């Protein structure tokens, strides 16, 4: 191997090691470098609150049904969806941002419904922040704190 090539490999090793150790010891995240903090916090005894999306049915009077996440949120997995909604809720103009997201989810749900006859029609969607302990428990009315709603796919902000 040439000296230049050996020097190049040493530069590569330094580029792998130095930022990796910086992120490890500082706790900062610069993907693809990372401190790899997954599950480093002690798991809470009670699960944190979670966002649930409910569809408002076309019935008279209307009822609310929990929409399966895969019908509107793909490719976001549940963890990413919860994190994204939390960040939006804590950010600037959360109401407008969340309503824009719900409009997109409603459109995507309608598109998915065209492909799957099993999904019922809805006139809108409501986003609730639900106590984590209620996951899997029978639905309460209301299921949690109403965070945002969109009642027509074409509704303005």
């Amino acid at each position, binding site marked *: 191997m040439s000296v230049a090539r050996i020097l190049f490999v040493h530069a590569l090793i330094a580029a792998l090691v130095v930022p990796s150790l910086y992120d490890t010891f500082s706790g900062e995240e610069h993907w693809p470098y*990372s401190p790899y903090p997954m599950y480093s916090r002690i798991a809470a005894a009670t699960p944190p609150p979670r966002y649930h999306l409910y569809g408002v049915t076309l019935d008279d009077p209307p009822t609310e049904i929990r929409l399966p996440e895969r019908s509107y949120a793909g490719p976001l997995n549940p963890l990413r969806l919860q994190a994204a909604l939390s960040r939006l809720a804590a950010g600037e103009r959360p109401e407008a941002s969340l309503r824009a997201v719900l409009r997109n989810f409603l459109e995507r749900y309608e598109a998915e419904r065209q492909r799957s006859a099993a999904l019922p029609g809805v006139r809108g969607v409501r986003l609730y922040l639900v106590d984590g302990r209620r996951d899997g428990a029978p639905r309460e009315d209301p299921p949690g704190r109403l965070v945002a709603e969109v009642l027509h796919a074409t509704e303005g902000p």
Partner: protein
Amino acid sequence: VRAIADHWMRFWFAPSTPVNLALCRILCFGAFVVLHARYDVSAWGELPDELWMPIPLFETLHVPKPAPGPLWVVAAVWKAALVASCVGLFTRAATSVSAVLGLYILGLPHSFGITDHANALEVWVLAIMALSKCGDALSLDRVMTRSKRRAPIPPSGEYTWPVRCVWLMFALIFFASGYSKLRTSGLAWITSENFARLMTREANTGLLAAWASALARHSWACRTLAAVTVALEISYPLTLVSQRARFAIVPGIFLMQVGILLTMGLAFYPFLICSLFWVPWDRVIDAGGRRLTGS
């Protein structure tokens, strides 16, 4: 100092045949092709602009939120480059495209809500392979070389350092993971009910989730597993200097990740795939050949 320097140079640049690196290329890129075959990358472009929260790398490079159409093309080129890298066709170009587009495509999900840590190692492996001479053997490039230029390839350090770089990334990643646990939670990560709670999360979807729930009732077992987890992670860098540590820690971490998949349903497939770099394929082939020929 001289002895340390010699050891350092031997570790990174001891001459080895190109077969080991070539087999790592074929198996890893082949597994990446299968892993991503049905991955609909363009779906990220259909998410609303409000959910675009770019990672620092994308923010620095002013990477915009992608549109579905162009993203489909980028994904198709990337997948074709992965296939070409696997078979060793225009290997240098194919592995470079795999690395550059892989950085973008594998980084996209982290720009929607949260950065997770399942695929960073894959990005590093793609980059290391792009900078290596992994197409020198067992490749279509080699087959297409004119026969008179196809002399046997002598052993070289060029085929050693890429494998060692992947080992290094494993060591850095698992050390960071173990260190994060101790820095964030201290020994309570091991001694508290933490591990039992992880085993009984409602979100656990692994095939053995029910078995994990039963295990969680035995606090001594949970604390032992938690201690073993942190010990394996923190001590992973020893694999770079000790063959004995390598024999214990590498399979231990591999089994730990299989266990996480089976209990919690969290799939760290890129880590499992990249573990192929720990197998001395040339020696495996030699041993297999000797067994077959009876020599």
